[in-house]
């Protein structure tokens, strides 16, 4: 019985292969045989009966987990949940994770969520969730363990570089879909994408339109803030990149198998009409956010400012396995128009600015200027006003981005005159 169970898979698989690969096939046969042997022994000798489905599911999980965290098996129900957008990583704790060395690694917390408020950071490792070790779980299981009803608590054990492991109790909230926000500083616009939800393009377009409506022709350009934007939908990312690019390649996927490589090209139209852009990135800029940053940077559409991104750039394909479910398999890697691999290289900013806080000098007395002198001439109507220090930026990277954008606008004005 044992030999036949093992043999059937090996023989059937070998039947497909051509003669010139026979040596390799013999090795494959040996390996499949080994698995069949192990499976059969466990079925017969384990201390208690175990469902075949459980054994094979665990084996498939083990096999896929050895590849990468994003290659996973989905039951039909898992798949339906995915389609219905029920698996929203930002729900509950507001936390995007990946797997690293068998435990959960924080990609970045989502703006305003419990994880962000509690100060979780990119690179923090979650080793235990509610008393259950994360080791041995795959990404799907870990996300399920983190999720729960609003009001319930997740007890986490966190390992952070440079400190002893510590416990953190996070209360889950109905975080809701993260929203794109915008504001202005002077004539510069600022757009923040906290997460690439499927609706992100509409929100970005609305933000840019609102900025245009507010500032009209004075709009000098925008800062697209993708710092700590942990990812989301790759399709939505490509839509956002396309919104600012009018033609040519935005991003490519390089696969090993034929048919798994492709190039995504931009379609006509730029919602910002070619005005300058600065894209702000950091170590928490991951996945979908890296796709946007890479496309805009490599095509010369935006200047990337900040620090190197997270490096999460694999592309998955969904393959149905009969009635059993689906395999989500990594079949390629994203490559920028200039050939950088997001997975290996990340997006490297043209202008490196480390995160810092700006501490402004305290004004103990009003500063003396001509206008403060007694008997100074009145400022004529319509004369130049000093740029107010209104809302001076304490976020150093952002301050530098605003300065850069303003300088770009000045250079453009000079060139135009």
């Amino acid at each position, binding site marked *: 019985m044992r030999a036949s169970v093992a043999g*059937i898979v*090996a023989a059937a698989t070998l039947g497909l292969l051509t003669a010139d690969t026979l040596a390799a096939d013999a090795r494959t046969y040996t*390996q499949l045989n080994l698995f069949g042997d192990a499976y059969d022994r466990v*079925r017969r000798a384990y201390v208690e009966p175990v469902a075949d489905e459980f054994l094979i599911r*665990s084996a498939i999980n083990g096999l896929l987990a050895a590849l990468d965290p994003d290659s996973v098996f989905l039951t039909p129900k898992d798949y339906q949940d995915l389609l219905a957008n029920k698996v929203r990583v930002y729900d509950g704790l507001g936390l995007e994770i990946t797997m690293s*060395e068998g435990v959960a690694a924080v990609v970045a917390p989502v703006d305003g969520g419990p994880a962000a408020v509690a100060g979780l950071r990119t690179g923090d490792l979650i080793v235990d969730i509610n008393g259950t070790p994360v080791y041995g779980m795959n990404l799907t299981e870990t996300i399920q363990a983190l999720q729960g009803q609003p009001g319930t608590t997740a007890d986490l054990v966190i390992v952070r570089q440079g400190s002893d492991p510590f416990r953190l109790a996070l209360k889950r909230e109905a975080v809701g879909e993260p929203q794109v926000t915008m504001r202005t500083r002077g004539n510069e616009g600022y757009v923040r994408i906290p997460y690439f939800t499927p609706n992100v393009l509409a929100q970005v377009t609305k933000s840019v339109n609102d900025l245009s409506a507010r500032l009209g022709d004075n709009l000098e350009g925008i800062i697209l803030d993708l710092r700590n934007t942990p990812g989301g939908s790759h399709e939505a990312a490509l839509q956002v990149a396309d919104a600012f690019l009018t033609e040519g390649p935005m991003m490519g996927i390089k696969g090993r198998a034929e048919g798994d490589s492709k190039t995504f090209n931009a379609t006509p139209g730029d919602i910002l009409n070619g005005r300058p852009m600065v894209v702000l990135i950091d170590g928490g800029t991951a996945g979908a956010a890296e796709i946007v940053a890479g496309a805009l940077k490599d095509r010369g559409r935006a200047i990337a400012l900040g620090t190197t991104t997270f490096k999460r750039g694999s592309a998955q394909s969904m393959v149905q396995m009969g009635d059993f479910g689906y395999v989500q398999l990594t*079949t390629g890697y994203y490559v920028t128009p200039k050939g950088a691999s997001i997975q290996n290289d990340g997006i490297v900013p043209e202008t490196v600015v480390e995160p810092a806080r700006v501490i402004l000098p305290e004004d103990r007395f009003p500063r003396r200027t001509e206008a403060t002198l007694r008997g100074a001439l009145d400022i004529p109507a319509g004369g130049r006003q000093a740029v107010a220090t209104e809302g001076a930026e304490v976020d150093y990277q952002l301050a530098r981005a605003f300065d850069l954008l303003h300088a770009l606008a000045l250079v453009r004005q000079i060139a135009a005159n």
Partner: protein
Amino acid sequence: MIRTSVVRAGLAAGLACMLSSAVPVQAAETTAYQQLNLFGNVFELVRARYAEPVDEQRLIYSAINGMLAALDPHSAFMAAQEYRDMQQRTSGEFGGLGLEVRMEEGLVRVSRPMEDSPALRAGVKANDLITHLDGSPVLGLTLNEAVEKMRGRVNTPIDLTIQREGVAQPVVVRVIRDIIRQPSVSYRLEGNAAYIRISSFSEQTESGVRRAMTELRDQLGDKFEGVILDVRNNPGGLLEQSVAVVDAFLERGEVVSTRGREQGNVQRYTARRGDLAEGRPIIVLTNNGSASASEIVAGALQDHKRAIVLGTTTFGKGSVQTIMPMGDQGAMRLTTSRYYTPSGKSIQGTGVVPDVVVEQARIQPLRTATGAAPTAAPPPAAGPGATTPPDYQLARAIDLLHSLAVYQKAPVVN
């Protein structure tokens, strides 16, 4: 996608042939085949389409390990080299660092470096937190896996990355592996008691216990008051050896029984005549690190009321693993039976609960009225060397054993 469907067709054809053969195949077997086909399909998909070329052997090993690890924490796959290492280790060709460690929040905490060990010489200290082994993270490893990684051939180096309290930057310490002499059995006199420490159950355990008893009884003669069997932090080992140790102190009766999956697949181990302690009291010292074979000893002697178990509740591992060689590809360690103490209890999950619960407390002497520290003898040291803290549990065991001896010798008043 096309390729995948072809694979499925091929497998289905193979399956059909099998099913149409003369042998009637039960429904359960059909499910087994269908599931195995599913595995074959996933394997083929990965081979054909994964973003990078794959190492098939690694994939299959990972699959087997995934299957076994999902069953219980003690079932695992050992690749050929690992299996050879495991076999060689018992022959003493393998070296270690000489560290007593425990797992804390996914990292390895040093309980203490052993006397005259490579780790001590290299400057590893008690309470150090080991985060990386040869640069790769400890996180994600089980304690056993981490210990396996620290072991290796004698004279080979390993770099430990250590977080030490009060030191901001991690320290990297290089330790050269050496043979760690940790005899299965060590012994000494504690007052008029025979103190026998069993650190693991290897093939030398029974003979070690017999030698210890002979030697200590020779030294004590008529003053012999009893035996303290210390199985604290003893992770277990060979089932037969634990049975032999119990047998050495038990005149008759069942020691332990193991039950496999099949009905009637019960194996009973019983004691033969003879008691090395000649009926004198025995105390078994246990703690949370006493597992498996240690629990068989504690459970059997407790059930027969042959010993008083003192300390803290044991680990609670009530399963037996079988090593199954897989040709030249390594071996599987698979849980094949459970064991039960003589009273029919499984200690799985619950452990052996001591008759006398004594935590390993730290004792701080109070100053007496005259301002001087009490002059009573301090509790015995936990091991050789003056720097180790006193062993409170052992002190309580010695007291108890002595009290029992006094009580038994006392004249009957009525």
